[in-house]
């Protein structure tokens, strides 16, 4: 099934994997984001697991590290380290790598936690919200609407002079910390031996059933992660930025990239027979519209205040931004806590403390917004 799908994609989108990478890279360099993202979506679809993106992957990594004990969502996903390293390498090669940090790191840590809390109530980061929509999941409409509202609130704060302060240049070593962590995670993935019976990977956990056990082969995941990392770094793809620039500047160039991503994912789903419109029975989703909406309002606001969706934060962290690195660590910690403290939803519905977590996250983000308004 896997190879036939890859074959079909090759026919649909033309070219092999390597050619796909080269073309996509060329298009993104030329600023033709929509073409680049056609390629990205092709690769996304090649690995079915790309249906669940950054937020959920971090959740699985948090599980793998033992930060939570939800046995079905523990897996050291190589896509995330690959994604970070892709950005790191692209930034190094283009001279855009710059070690910097110091813009309210602790605030960003908690914003990262809020973003993850909201995302796990909805069950997906913005990338996944769009992919869920493209797969016909009606619940994602509430999530995308929530994201837009959250980002819109964020833009109002920026209009009012919101700022988390200036970052300063740091030593080179300070900028490579997250890339180094990514390498260590990959090393663990390669050198520790999995035990499918015990559900472990050396010292780490690895799901034997559930979403954590469903994953693409290691090298495909890693190559996919690296490729998307390079493309996202070059194109500055950001789902939050797309909405923010629309609200703030009436600019649509980032939005066109996101819309192209949506259209292509939609087309790929149609071609592959994966488009299943409806609200119930959608993969890794629940049908509580209000909390799908509010979860993403909290996330969207947190992303806006911190300056990027999870994908963009990972990319920035790879480029040497220590503040984004702290945001990512906040997301990782929250991904662990969300399961041990019952914030995270499941296909059965909200977690026992999901509503409270959403409201606390939303309240915290609003507080951060109000407290950092600087205009006289």
């Amino acid at each position, binding site marked *: 099934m896997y190879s036939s799908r890859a074959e079909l994609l090759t026919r649909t989108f033309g070219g092999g994997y390597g050619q796909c990478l080269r073309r996509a890279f060329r298009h993104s360099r030329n600023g033709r984001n929509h073409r680049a993202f056609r390629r990205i979506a092709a690769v996304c679809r090649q690995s079915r697991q790309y249906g669940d993106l950054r937020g959920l992957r971090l959740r699985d990594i948090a599980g793998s590290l033992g930060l939570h004990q939800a046995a079905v969502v523990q897996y050291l996903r190589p896509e995330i380290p690959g994604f970070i390293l892709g950005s790191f390498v692209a930034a190094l090669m283009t001279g*855009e790598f*710059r070690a*910097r940090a*110091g*813009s309210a790191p602790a605030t960003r840590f908690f914003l990262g936690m809020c973003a993850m809390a909201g995302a796990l109530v909805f069950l997906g980061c913005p990338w996944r919200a769009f992919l869920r929509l493209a797969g016909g999941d009606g619940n994602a409409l509430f999530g995308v609407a929530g994201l837009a509202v959250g980002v819109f609130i964020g833009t109002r704060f*920026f*209009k009012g002079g919101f*700022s988390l*302060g*200036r*970052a*300063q*240049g740091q030593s080179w070593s300070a900028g490579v910390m997250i890339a180094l962590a990514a390498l260590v995670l990959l090393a663990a993935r390669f050198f520790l031996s999995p035990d499918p019976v015990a559900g472990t990977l050396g010292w780490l956990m690895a799901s034997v059933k559930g979403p954590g056990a469903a994953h693409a082969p290691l090298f495909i995941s890693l190559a996919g992660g690296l490729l998307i990392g390079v493309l996202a770094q070059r194109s*500055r793809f950001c789902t939050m*930025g797309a909405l*923010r*620039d629309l609200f*703030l*500047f*009436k*600019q649509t*160039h980032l939005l066109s990239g996101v819309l192209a991503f949506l259209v292509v994912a939609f087309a790929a789903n149609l071609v592959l027979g994966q488009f299943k419109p409806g609200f119930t029975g959608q993969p890794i989703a629940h049908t509580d519209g209000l909390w799908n909406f509010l979860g993403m309002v909290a996330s969207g606001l947190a992303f806006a205040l911190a*300056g990027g969706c999870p994908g963009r934060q990972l990319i920035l962290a790879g*480029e040497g931004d220590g503040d984004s690195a702290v945001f990512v660590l906040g997301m990782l910690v929250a991904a662990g806590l969300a399961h041990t403290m019952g914030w995270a939803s499941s296909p059965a519905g909200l977690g026992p403390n999901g509503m409270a977590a959403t409201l606390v996250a939303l309240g915290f983000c609003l507080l951060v917004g109000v407290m950092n308004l600087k205009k006289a």
Partner: protein
Amino acid sequence: MAEITKIVDARGLSCPQPVLIASDEMAALETGRIEVLTDCGASPENVGRAAKAAGWRLVSSSEDKGTVRLVLEKP
């Protein structure tokens, strides 16, 4: 070369702040020459776009040690 009317130092600030500050200055000055300093990767393009939308012209763009210096002008 005309005098710089205003310097916007947006170093250390991430998008969208450099664009917002530059836009505010463009709106306040109406005409003149603004120098914008930024070290955020996406900002030079975004400031350029905002300037164009506000009827300003991007006169020059130069980079030194990661800091991009943009000069915007509206006669």
